[in-house]
């Protein structure tokens, strides 16, 4: 028997077999089950359940707040990455390590502490609420929590790119007469753009699925501060399986589309790294 590809190392059958078995049991079968159940509802019923007023309000909040949080993360994440890579200042190593804190912290704890901070008696809330900035039980609170959980993505995506930026390009721009601002806008920013977009998309995708931190800080008021995942849980508790599954499939479709976009973005960004 002639094999087309010769694999010199052993263990392919064993590891591949185990991998496929594990993935099937944990991912593919449950996913298939969900999609199969979703097919039991007629398309008309599916559309009706997916576009109820409450569902539409939940989508608006989920996607709107995620978008705002991702933009905030893009801005501050770029700033943070720039400052961490380019400058030396006391506490730089500490902040660099702490950037991963939202990634490591359980989302429930994040929601709990942020809700407490921005509540009227909280450390920040006692100053902000009299100014009209209500962070807890509002959609602003949702944006704040999503900014927190998404923060590491932009910073960690930009840091390697910034570290590999060649200074001589900036020197060339300066020697040709560009001001520092002009150099940043015309030379540095375009180089960062692919990585920034990737970080933005990752932050956005993370924010859409986020559940734990939101349920503490938003108050979960229907039509006002109820996110789509929370609505799914509500439907489950009412034993409205069809409704819950419909919403889940809508979220899944959007997640997959976003995942495809992220893949394309990452491939585009990699082209500039070579």
């Amino acid at each position: 028997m002639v094999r087309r590809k010769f694999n010199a190392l052993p263990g392919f059958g064993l590891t591949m077999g185990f991998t496929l078995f594990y993935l099937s049991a944990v991912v593919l079968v449950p996913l298939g089950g969900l999609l199969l159940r979703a097919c039991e509802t007629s398309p008309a019923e599916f559309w009706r359940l997916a576009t109820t007023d409450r569902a539409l309000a939940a989508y608006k909040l989920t996607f709107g707040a995620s978008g705002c949080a991702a933009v905030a993360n893009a801005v501050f994440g770029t700033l943070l990455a720039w400052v961490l890579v380019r400058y030396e200042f006391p506490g730089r190593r500490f902040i660099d390590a702490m950037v991963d804190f939202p990634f490591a912290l359980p989302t429930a704890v994040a929601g709990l502490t942020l809700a407490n901070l921005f509540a009227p008696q909280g450390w920040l809330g006692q100053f902000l609420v009299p100014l009209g900035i209500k962070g807890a039980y509002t959609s602003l609170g949702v944006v704040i929590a999503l900014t927190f959980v998404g923060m590491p993505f932009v910073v960690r995506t930009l840091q390697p790119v910034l570290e590999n930026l060649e200074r001589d390009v900036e020197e060339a721009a300066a020697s040709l007469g560009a001001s520092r601002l002009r150099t940043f806008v015309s030379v540095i920013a375009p180089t960062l753009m692919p990585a920034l977009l990737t970080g933005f998309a990752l932050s956005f995708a993370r924010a859409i699925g986020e559940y734990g931190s939101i349920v503490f800080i938003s108050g979960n008021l229907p039509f006002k501060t109820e996110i789509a995942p929370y609505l799914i849980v509500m439907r489950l508790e009412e034993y409205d399986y069809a409704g819950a599954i419909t919403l889940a499939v809508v979220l899944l479709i959007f997640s997959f589309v976003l995942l495809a976009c992220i893949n394309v973005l990452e491939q585009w960004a990699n082209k500039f790294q070579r």
Partner: protein
Amino acid sequence: MAGTVTRKTTVGHRASQRGTEESPVIKWLLIAVALAFSAVFLLLPLINVFAQAFAKGLAYYHDSLWHPDSWAAIRLTLLVAAISVPLNVLFGVAAAWAIAKFEFRGKSLLITVIDLPFSVSPVVAGLMFVVLFGLQGFFGSWLDAHDLRIIYAVPGIVLATVFITFPFVARELIPVMQATGTEQEQAAMTLGANGWQTFWHVTLPSIKWGLVYGIILCNARAMGEFGAVSVVSGHITGQTDTMPLRVEKLYNEYNAPAAFAVASLLALLALLTLGVKTYMEWKQAREYERSQADSEAAKP
């Protein structure tokens, strides 16, 4: 300040004359804004957890943690992590070995499937298992007939946690294994080692940092998972409440200091995870420097 004639200088304030650095005013303004942002969004929430946990004093903190239901939650969290993390390590090693050391068609599809839990909302993940194993699910009546419970019981929590956390180890190991390539393993095999010996003595030492980092990330996520576990657990106090769920329950009972007490343990876990990660990165950098120095010294 463009067009200034430059001298050969190293870094420092001269760099601003070279035109490659901002003026000190801008620089320190940016640093101040970045530090303020970090303080508000990173440090303040962390400090607040501990401040609120001890708000009613040390005795209350102690009693909150030793409450039987909280202690049951801690035990359950540890149990779930103790089951899911080793399983996921096994999977991660197997998948990384298959993906990094062999060529086959469908590899990118496999990697995409492995990345799936990152793009699926935790609630949707939990719902998937309810649809499969819940009373009205596909296997529901079979399970009920055999008096087995997966949903609203510990196996469901383990399953949901495994789903959410299995990519972590694999994603850490695949790049590392791909970077080391297959030459060392092939050399070992020509010297007569079998597969297991090769893996144990050649592969494992080269991936140890990635493996440790993957394990601690996987563990941190496994202990802290909320959304997926919330859907499958049934919130039965003392039985199917993990630590994050216990935090929610205490909070909903208006017992904020107790909620923060349990949360403080989870925050400590996060800090420990960060600490191990930083230490490992430092050690890895040291090893790299030492190997660079060795290869420099070895040059004739």
